[in-house]
Each structure stands twice: as C-alpha cells, then as structure tokens.
C-alpha cells in the first residue's frame, strides 16, 4: 500500500490567481496521477506526472492551465492557473501499483473554491 499526503486540504481563491497543490508519497512510485472531481460528479483524470519529463495530459486538459511538476519518485505538484469559478472542484493525487495486485491509491484531496 501507499500513504499519500496532500496539501492544502482546502482553499478559497480569487478569480485569476493560481494555486499549487502538493502530493507526497511515503515510498517511491513510478506512476503518479492527478484527478479532478467536479461537484456531484465522478473522477476525471487530468494527467500523469512523469518523473524527469513533461506530464502527459488527457484530452481537455492543457499544460498552461494545469502545470505539473514531478522532481522525484515521491513528490508531485499540480498548479491550477488563472482560476475561474469553473475550476472549483476536488483535486486528488493518486498512485498506481501495477502487477497482479494492481490498484489505485488516493490522497486526501484538495477542496478548491474559486470566487
């Protein structure tokens, strides 16, 4: 299993500003991801945070809006840039452990409200 620490747990931000969310894992992992959960909806994968290279974004998400860093195998950040009220969501960091016991583990999430 993996223990994932995510911060901040919640924030209220002004339109046009940026917020950086941090994700720390208690062990080295290859695959780290960022999900968005809009109010009342399911989870949507934003991107895969690749160590030592640029993140891989899913359709509908771009680097200018959601820049991601992955400086090592235990840490990643997601920045939500130039925020608008539509960015109000829960953002979740996750890691995937593959192989026969594959599963996704999640951080505690960041509740973001944009005014």
């Amino acid at each position: 299993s993996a223990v994932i620490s995510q911060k901040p747990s919640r924030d209220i931000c002004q339109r046009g500003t940026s917020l950086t969310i941090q994700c720390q894992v208690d062990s080295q992992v290859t695959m780290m991801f960022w999900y968005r959960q809009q109010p009342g909806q399911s989870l949507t994968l934003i991107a895969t945070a690749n160590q030592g290279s640029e993140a891989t974004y899913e359709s509908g998400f771009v680097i200018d809006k959601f820049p991601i860093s992955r400086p090592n195998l235990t840490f990643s950040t997601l920045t939500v840039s130039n925020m608008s009220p539509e960015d109000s969501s829960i953002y979740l960091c996750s890691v995937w452990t593959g192989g026969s016991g594959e599963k996704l583990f999640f951080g505690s999430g960041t509740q973001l409200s944009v005014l």
Partner: protein
Amino acid sequence: AQTVTQSQPEMSVQEAETVTLSCTYDTSESDYYLFWYKQPPSRQMILVIRQEAYKQQNATENRFSVNFQKAAKSFSLKISDSQLGDAAMYFCAWGRGTYKYIFGTGTRLKVLA
C-alpha cells in the same frame, strides 16, 4: 470503450441492516479488475474491495462483499450490519493493466440511526 454505470444516485439504510449498491459495466476485455471505492466527507478515496475478473469466487472484506456476475457484467456491493461510519459516496471502477480506471458516477449512501 469501457463504461461503468451506477444507476442509484442515492440509497438509505437503517443502522445494522444490509444494503446492496448496484454497478454494471461494459467491456470487451476478458481479464480485468473491478473495485469499489468509498469517499466519505473527508474526500479521501478509500479502496473498499477489489475483484479479479478471472476469479469466480466473490471477494469479501469483513462486512463488505460483492456479487460478481461476469456474464451479466454486474458487480454489486453488499454492506452488512451497516454502521454510521459507512455513510459516504461509493464509486464503482473498472481497470485493466493500466492506470486509466473508469469510474461510475457514484451512489450516496445514507445510514439512518
């Protein structure tokens, strides 16, 4: 493409009673995994139970068990002896060998004292 459907937006159960949450999925794959995740108000997504499609035996974790019907592409979650702490959103998910899990839209479970 894979899809996961949870047709019950909300369910209620009396404390100590049993409740079943439904999930259906569609896939052309023969080997895959199915999951139930719980999301309490704390927002943390917690893995409740995991089923490997090649196993006929239904997975069980304490008070949580599944009814996996591969031919019918059905994967329901049964919670026995419901407790107040079981109140949460429950998400069904499909995965296979990659990180791109497909999540359902969730079922909100209310536990009545």
